[in-house]
């Protein structure tokens, strides 16, 4: 089954318990099981429907439009977009090394590659950013609320710690926990991932 993210909300907690590879595989399976394969193509419905439609309508890259035209982004399409990005950079002499973390790709280069990556980003950023948002915040809610709920589940903060408190603490640097703690990193990178 081809896992995909659409505008439809879905829950896939519990998929991240045995390392990044298992996490991604579990996430893909769970996503595929709850994201409505019977949904008609191009509906642009659900929490991200308007964003998907806007991205599709504004995209000038045919490859990006082809991905978005059915109103969803599959895991395979996300992977392919990152591979196009890597190939684009390679064509310009820059090696991009991808690394998966909590279901998303981070990457690195050796040497200053800013100009090349900026040139190659239009081929991937729309797809990658929307996929990342739908993965980490499937209901398109206030992200601070989503992060704090994750911090509560991880028992990093108490039940009465609120999103408003988090925003104030974050902006003042007064949060009552280490930003280097693995659970905090996970909640910032992907609040849907289980510890």
């Amino acid at each position, binding site marked *: 089954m081809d896992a995909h993210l659409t505008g439809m909300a879905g829950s896939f907690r519990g998929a991240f318990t045995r390392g990044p590879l298992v996490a991604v595989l579990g996430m893909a399976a769970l996503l595929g099981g709850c994201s409505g394969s019977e949904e008609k193509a191009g509906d642009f419905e659900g929490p991200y429907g308007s964003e998907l439609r806007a991205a599709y309508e504004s995209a000038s890259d045919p490859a990006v439009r082809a991905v978005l035209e059915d109103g969803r982004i599959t895991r395979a399409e996300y992977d392919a977009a990152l591979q196009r990005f890597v190939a684009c950079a390679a064509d310009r002499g820059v090696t991009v090394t991808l690394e998966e973390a909590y279901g998303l790709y981070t990457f690195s280069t050796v040497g200053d590659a800013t100009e090349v990556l900026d040139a190659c980003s239009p081929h991937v950023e729309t797809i990658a950013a929307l996929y990342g948002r739908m993965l980490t915040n499937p209901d398109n809610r206030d992200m601070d609320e989503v992060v704090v709920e994750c911090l509560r589940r991880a028992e990093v903060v108490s039940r009465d710690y609120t999103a408003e408190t988090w925003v104030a603490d*974050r902006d003042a*640097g007064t949060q009552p926990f280490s*930003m280097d703690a693995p659970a905090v990193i996970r909640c910032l990178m992907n609040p849907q991932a289980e510890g």
Partner: protein
Amino acid sequence: MRLRAFVSSLALAGASVALVAPVAHADGCTGQGYGYTNSTYSVSYSPGCNTQARIDRYYGGVVHQYYGSWGSTSYVYNANGYNAGNYFRLGPSAWMRI
């Protein structure tokens, strides 16, 4: 940089926060963003933006650039070498050092 945003910085408890003015003109962003950084990590967040965090580290005689995933919230971490700068991506070709 194509964009220049108002920035204020705080330095508390070994970390710093850069509050970024609304960047709705950049790429469909919907609200105020922020960057958060210390010597080993960089976080950027702008609601609705294709933002990214970036951290540059020197080791082996060259700079290594690490980029977080694209999305509203982006986080990147690396402890190799020594810090050469943390960045918050505001939009296409627009990076702000934080």
